[in-house]
């Protein structure tokens, strides 16, 4: 069966630096796969490769079995992307931002649809008609998450999705992601939050200096052991 996301021996250069070196993994339908790693490990680069922004030096990235560089538009239409600290337009309200981006994606939604998504991310109603420049970082992130939800794509790529969220909002977000995965959405998230990754992911991959150096999964409905992953993460970091 074709995996929604697959990296095959992926190597990438950015500005002369070897950022990814022979990375291979797949993410199955309905699976939450978290890529863990320190700064500069190549996590965000991996997401950009799936979005077709970076061309592999070697290997390839596939979305729904098709090489991204063969059909970038098709790959992007299947993916909702939540960048790190997503900067939506500060001079526009949450409604206006969502409306603009959904029109850009060719999937406009009704006001009720927007409200439903904003309800799911718990953005206060009174804030929705305010410009985003008056929002806290967490509120902006919630709006961006609502946008990802509204895209209703089979795949979500999340870059440090809980950055800026308070603990309660992080828990709510994790529940939301799990619900989406149960509904069949395939989720690839990159984070340096070991605890959060172990809380939400079905599988965790450990990236270090552009190489996938470890993979952890729980199975049988259990959570991945945070201490094990943390130990591996820390050990590799100091190694």
């Amino acid at each position, binding site marked *: 069966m074709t995996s929604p996301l697959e990296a095959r021996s992926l190597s990438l250069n950015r500005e002369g630096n070897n950022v990814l070196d022979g990375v291979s993994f797949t993410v199955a339908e309905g699976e939450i796969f978290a890529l863990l790693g320190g700064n500069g490990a190549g996590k965000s680069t991996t997401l950009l490769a799936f979005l077709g922004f970076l061309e592999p030096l070697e290997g390839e990235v596939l979305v729904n079995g098709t090489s991204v560089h063969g059909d970038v538009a098709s790959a992007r239409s299947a993916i909702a992307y939540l960048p*790190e600290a*997503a900067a939506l*337009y500060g001079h*526009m309200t949450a409604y*206006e931002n969502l409306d*603009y981006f959904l029109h*850009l*994606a060719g999937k406009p939604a009704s006001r009720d649809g927007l409200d439903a998504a904003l309800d799911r991310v718990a953005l206060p109603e009174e804030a929705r008609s305010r410009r985003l420049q008056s929002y806290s970082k967490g509120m902006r992130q919630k709006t961006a998450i609502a946008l990802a939800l509204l895209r209703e794509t089979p795949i979500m790529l999340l870059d440090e999705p809980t950055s800026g969220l308070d603990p309660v909002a992080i828990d709510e977000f994790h529940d939301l992601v799990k619900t989406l995965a149960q509904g069949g959405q395939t989720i690839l998230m990159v984070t340096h939050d070991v605890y959060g990754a172990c809380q939400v992911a079905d599988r965790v991959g450990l990236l270090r200096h552009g190489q996938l150096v470890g993979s952890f999964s729980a199975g049988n409905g259990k959570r991945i052991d945070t201490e094990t992953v943390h130990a591996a993460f820390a050990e590799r970091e100091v190694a």
Partner: protein
Amino acid sequence: MMLGNLTREIRFLARDRGALFWLALALILSVVAVSFGVAEVRDQRDTIATLVEEDAADRANALEGQEEWGSAAYYAFHLTYAPPSEFAFAAMGQRDSSPWKHRVRMLALEGQIHEADTKNADFGLVGRFDFAFLAASVAPLLLILLLYDLRASERTARRHDLLVATAGASWQLWFPRAFVRMIMLTLLLLLPLWIGALMEGTALSAIGQASFVLVGALLIWWLIVELVSRINASPSILLTSLIGLWLALAIVVPALSKAAIEANNPVPDGGEILLLQRETVNDAWDLPKEATMTPFVEEYPEWREYATIEGPWAWKWYYAFQQVGDQTVAPLVGQYRQARLSRDRQAGLLALLSPTSFVERAFEKLAGTDAAAMIAYEDAVRDFHAELRAFHYPMLIKEEPFDPNVLQRLPAYVPSATGD
């Protein structure tokens, strides 16, 4: 699909205060340029209308009581003028630096044409804020300000990848976003021009061609901005680069072209023509009369049998040395005319290197305010003066008895619409 993209970007633009400011400025500048142009053209028409009236009255007054053909020709002034065309409001062009009205007499002509060369020197230096200047020089700047950081500002705001990933294909985002700005700028610039053209009764073909020129120039600038803004650099570096390109194409290239053309085509100035002609005319007083009448009859062999001047003074001798004054400067005048036409032709070729020069020249051509039109006006003045001579010479040279009724048939200057 494309309509949806455009609607989306129109709504987006409506919320972008920075872009709205530049668009509003474009509209204001266009209104100002067109208003100034229309006011100037109407002022010139009023001036001409007043002069036409006063010229007729003045001539009638001067001719009253005259008893000789010579004095009648001497004291009668004749107004010549190039009325502004119906599109001149958009491009005053050479009308600011070349004379478009004269009062000529039966005397030597070239001096009368060229003694006005130094008028409007201030406009020759600073130029006029007319629509042609707006379209050629200011509109590209406004377009640069509207487009230069479309990509770079999104990169700086870390929104670029999200936008492009959401759009799917890059062109679905950047093309409509730039296109909407380009169209809005074009419309806001053209709208006052179209209204001005309606008020002035400009031909549809001229309006269409002017609009086409503006759109074409803005498309070229859009291409330039598009190519530069693809560079992965900060907005300030992109703006600096584009302003540099604008300076090069709008100022440096035209200035260098002008210097090269002038060095390559030396032109005698009007003062030289004026001086030579006056010296010739003044010297004639001290020369034997044959020295004047011989070259005169070489030009007009039909008057050979009347060329002998027996007394110390004769009107025909006086007008003959005025004529010889023109004959003496004719080579210089021809050289002056050809050099100006040659400069104009070369300027037309070099304008292909600068969208700014090209647009200005195109507008001046449409408005009938280019160098060719002004030279055509000078030629029309010469033709009219030749008619005056043809009218007066038979009576003057054959020294026929004076009949004031004949003066009712004096030639009248009839301008063409654009002075050509």
